[in-house]
């Protein structure tokens, strides 16, 4: 049974004051089990202690919680303080010019939802970046524009501009640029391309690949093998690339043993030889095999030289 019961009357107006028998209890008001009709003017609930507005209903901007700055004007729910939700928040899909999640005073910059399973970002009302359903991040484009899969695609159409710049400033020690980790851990000539080049139409041009020993593959425009050695005295290799050893077969007669073999024997060789920097000798390359070639130093007859180089280009 209710502690206080007010029976409505068919007509009449006035002020009703409810006084609870105790100061802190017995203050429950039970309204009729039906709609409550308010008057034409706004109705305001006040804080009994401070007389500040708690809730105003019926004005142009309904103050849902006036003291906390929570208002609703029929189109915008405004919160003066932070907004926190323990549940999910759902927004409309938005658009390039009007992102779903934007910023006060800058409503054309923010996040929106262009397609299913996709998130897009706009700045200044223009699409700049999106994350596709497969997780690919597209910068400056809405798709990867490639038949190949990728995790990051960056496109620019700017004169004298770059699609990407990697800067690790600057004039200091221990600053590194780009790390590319790709391919098999053991040497192999199979398809592992840390860097692949295409023209503006997307046609393959060339690629560069290295294995775990630093040997490059498929870079037809870079030397696949090179060596510099001293053929006088105790023959000694000064430096080399993709060379496992050098065979001294006699005066001016050497075999360059390639570490990871060439794909075929149609590779091109070059080199030169000098003797104490003053005399030049001819270098002849013969006996091309996939795993080695014969380099001869000729000066009327074979002779030793102290600065001999050999270079091979090819597949």
């Amino acid at each position, binding site marked *: 049974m209710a502690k206080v019961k007010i029976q409505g009357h068919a007509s009449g107006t006035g002020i009703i004051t409810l006084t609870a028998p105790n100061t802190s209890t017995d203050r429950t008001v039970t309204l009729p089990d039906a709609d409550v009709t308010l008057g034409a003017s706004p109705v305001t609930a006040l804080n009994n202690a401070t007389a500040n507005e708690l809730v105003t209903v019926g004005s142009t901007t309904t103050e849902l919680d006036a003291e906390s700055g929570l208002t609703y004007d029929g189109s915008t729910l405004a919160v003066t303080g932070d907004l926190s939700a323990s549940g999910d928040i759902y927004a409309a899909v938005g658009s390039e010019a009007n992102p779903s999640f934007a910023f006060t005073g800058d409503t054309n910059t923010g996040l929106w939802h262009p397609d299913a399973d996709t998130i897009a970002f706009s700045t200044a009302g223009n699409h700049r970046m999106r994350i596709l359903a497969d997780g690919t991040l597209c910068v400056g484009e809405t798709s990867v524009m490639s038949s190949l899969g990728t995790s990051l695609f960056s496109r620019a159409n700017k004169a004298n501009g770059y699609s990407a710049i990697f800067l690790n400033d600057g004039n200091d020690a221990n600053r590194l640029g780009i790390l590319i980790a790709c391919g098999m851990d053991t*040497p*192999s000539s199979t398809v592992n391309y840390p860097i692949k080049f295409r023209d503006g139409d997307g046609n393959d041009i060339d690629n560069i690949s290295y294995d775990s020993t630093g040997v490059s593959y498929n870079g037809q425009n870079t030397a696949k093998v090179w060596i510099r050695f001293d053929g006088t*005295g105790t023959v000694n290799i000064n430096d*080399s*690339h993709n060379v496992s*050893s050098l065979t*001294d077969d006699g*005066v001016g007669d050497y075999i360059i043993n390639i570490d990871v073999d060439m794909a075929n024997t149609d590779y091109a060789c070059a080199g030169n030889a000098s003797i104490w920097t003053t005399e030049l000798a001819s270098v002849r390359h013969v006996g091309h095999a996939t795993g080695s070639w014969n380099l001869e130093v000729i000066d009327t007859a074979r002779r*030793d030289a102290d600065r001999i180089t050999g270079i091979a280009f090819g597949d």
Partner: protein
Amino acid sequence: MRIIYDKNGTLAVLVPAPKKLASMTGTDEEKLIHLANKDLPTGTKYEIIDEAVVDLSDRSFRNAWEYVAGASEQTSADLSAEDLAKYNMTENK
């Protein structure tokens, strides 16, 4: 370290590339044995020498040098299938 062997009656000296050696694991002798298996025809008799001990610097009569088998002579062997693939080789030399 060097590998010496006979090649058509003349001494051949195989000089390992320092970068190649640096990329390999094992002892110096193990590295040289692997290079012999890789760069010499299978079945070649050879010896590993220390050029600091065996003087190879005087090349006045280089073409007359001959290989004479010593006590530590070894024979080059086939590479494993894994190594052949590693070196992009289709068969042993």
